[in-house]
């Protein structure tokens, strides 16, 4: 990485791969760089070509989201000067993220033989007390020399991100309160799986078409959800999976069913989904595993039958009442 050659600001293009944590933090990233005065380039929605490139580049046992991420980086590598990616070990005390985020920088760097410029931010709160604000400040200072400007840009980006996130959560909670005849299903999946254009969104689109009200487990307020999760499970230490567990506990009595979606072979999900199902056996649930060889027809058949079963069950319950 040639940080020494600071290019002129107007010329710099920062590439944001539309994969992994982009779906969670995109407002934060986009506003931050726009405020600093850089052009940003976001890769397009995942398509077959990007997936194919990613599969060719990645170690064949990597999980699907990492393969897609590498495909997006491959798309951006000639078009952007820097590729922005997160390297996150832990966001909170005594918590960690999946190890793919821990090794993301080195994974990408080694896959492209160290030939691309990567702009990474490194959050490691549990071990080195590096929190989000500090790391964004470091990233900003690599690009511009005015610390005040960096700080203000970060504050503004954070505010917008928080507001948007809160709005989505509130909107979802309002939808939950609405009384209508629709089936209510909670989708427990990482945002980079369910919101991805190629692998996840066909599922949510199909469910919407089937006249189902869907709720996402990643749209919860983080702190209360994690606290609730700690009451249920003493040992779980993956931040996002803890949020899911809290969300399931929060929604448990108000929904008709849960769909667990995991990408193959997701490490944390393999264990956590087993735990969710053991802790909440009373809710009807379905377990979907996505990989790059998935046929859409098979998936839709399974979803359709699950929705049918839930509908029948709902009718039966209404009758007995």
């Amino acid at each position, binding site marked *: 990485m040639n940080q020494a050659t600071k290019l002129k600001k107007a010329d710099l293009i920062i590439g944001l791969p539309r994969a992994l944590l982009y779906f969670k933090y995109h407002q934060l990233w986009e506003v931050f760089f726009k405020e600093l005065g850089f052009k940003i380039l976001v890769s397009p929605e995942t398509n077959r070509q990007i997936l194919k490139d990613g599969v060719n580049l990645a170690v064949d046992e990597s999980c699907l989201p990492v393969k897609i991420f590498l495909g997006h980086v491959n798309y951006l590598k000639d078009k952007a000067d820097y590729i922005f990616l997160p390297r996150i070990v832990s966001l909170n005390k005594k918590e960690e993220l999946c190890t*793919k985020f821990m090794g993301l920088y080195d994974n990408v760097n080694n896959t492209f033989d160290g030939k691309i410029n990567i702009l990474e931010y490194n959050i490691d709160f549990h071990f080195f007390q590096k929190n989000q604000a500090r790391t964004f400040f470091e990233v900003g200072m690599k690009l511009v020399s005015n610390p005040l400007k960096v700080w203000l840009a970060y504050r503004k980006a954070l505010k917008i991100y928080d507001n948007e996130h809160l709005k989505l959560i509130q909107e979802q909670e309002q939808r939950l309160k609405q009384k209508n005849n629709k089936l209510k299903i909670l989708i427990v999946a990482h945002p980079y799986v369910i919101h991805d254009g190629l692998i996840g969104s066909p599922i949510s689109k199909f469910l919407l078409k089937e006249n189902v009200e869907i709720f996402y487990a990643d749209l919860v307020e983080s702190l209360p959800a994690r606290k609730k999760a700690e009451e249920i499970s003493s040992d779980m230490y993956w931040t996002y999976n803890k949020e899911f567990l809290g969300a399931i506990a929060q929604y448990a009595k108000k929904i008709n069913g849960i769909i667990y979606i995991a990408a193959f072979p997701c*490490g944390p999900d393999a264990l956590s989904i087993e735990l969710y199902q*053991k802790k909440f056996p009373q809710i009807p649930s379905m377990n979907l595993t996505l990989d790059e060889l998935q046929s859409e027809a098979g998936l839709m058949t399974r979803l359709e039958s699950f929705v049918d079963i839930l509908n029948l069950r709902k009718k039966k319950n209404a009758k007995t009442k």
Partner: protein
Amino acid sequence: MPKQNNNKFKACFPHMGNYHVAFKSIAKLLDCEIITPPPISKKTIELGCKYSPEFVCIPFKYNLGNYIEALEKGANVIVQAGGGCRFGFYGEVQKEILKSLGYKFEFFKLNNSFNPFVIAKEFQKFNRRATIPFLLRGFALAFCQALAIEKIEDYVRKNIGFEKKEGEMEKLFNSFLMELDKINNFTQIYKTYNKFKINFHKIKTKKPKKPIRVGLVGELYVVMEPFSNFEIEKKLGKKGVEIHRFTTVSNIITSFLFSRKHVKRLMSDAKPYLKYHIGGHGLESVANAHKLARQGFDGLIHVKPFGCMPEINAMTALHRISQDYQFPIVYFSFDSLTSESGVATRLEAFYDMLIMKRKKYAKNQRIHGGGHRLHFHQSRSH
């Protein structure tokens, strides 16, 4: 002290290589009867797979199989350590699975916290005499046993391929384990270790001056449990290869205790290939691979359970090391469906390739007086 067993509890623990001797010493601290699970077999993994989540990594399945077999034998306390990548979360899920199968037991976790008071309190639930000095002695004893096993194992790994009369070392090693199993104090461990060390050195070997040297790196469970890696070490060792391995239990414990220093040293070893710690034992794998490549080893074996993310991160760096140093690396990934003959075939091909590389190098040296680039790498540095 008269030994009084707390009859209510019967403790068991998972297997890992030959470490059951040391694990037993830790389980003994609970002051109850100890049930060693039967050695890992095909049945263990079948049981484990049947009740595990589908794509969880293979150590989970082996551990679960061990527990089921031990519970069937009458155990009712399970002892497990924590820490690492997914390992810290194994316990809770396994507990839920076993409970839903209808077993009644207590789960004893040596959890991620290293606070001696917390650990002592946990032990005191089972054993009233478990004070901190008592526990420290127990852990130190287990550590010494592990160390003794490792030292002897290391000698065996490096020499088993060259013994004059086949099978001698294995026999001696088994009797060493049997003897170590009975021992309960430090001086006797030391004495037994010394006795067997001399005995091992007495075994006649025909080692060439420059034997083929191969390193073994990877995820810790698969590296250390020979059943799970289809005895790669033994298979390759018997062909006449000196095998070096760095992942051992004592190594892992010391690296935990001196974590920052350890990581710093590894980072400098892995330098151009890694910038950050990549989780699990990935950093160790890359650092050791880089070191061995520079030391002029003939090759490297990398093993991991299927889908092990830290090792996948490491593999991207290993590919580069392999290219930059012309350093042969073979990758094995183990799952419950991996076939033994497939592994054996690939291992054989790898061995043949190493021999061919040696011959080619020797020829080059005769013609040119040393290979242009290989020369540096082949020079031995100790």
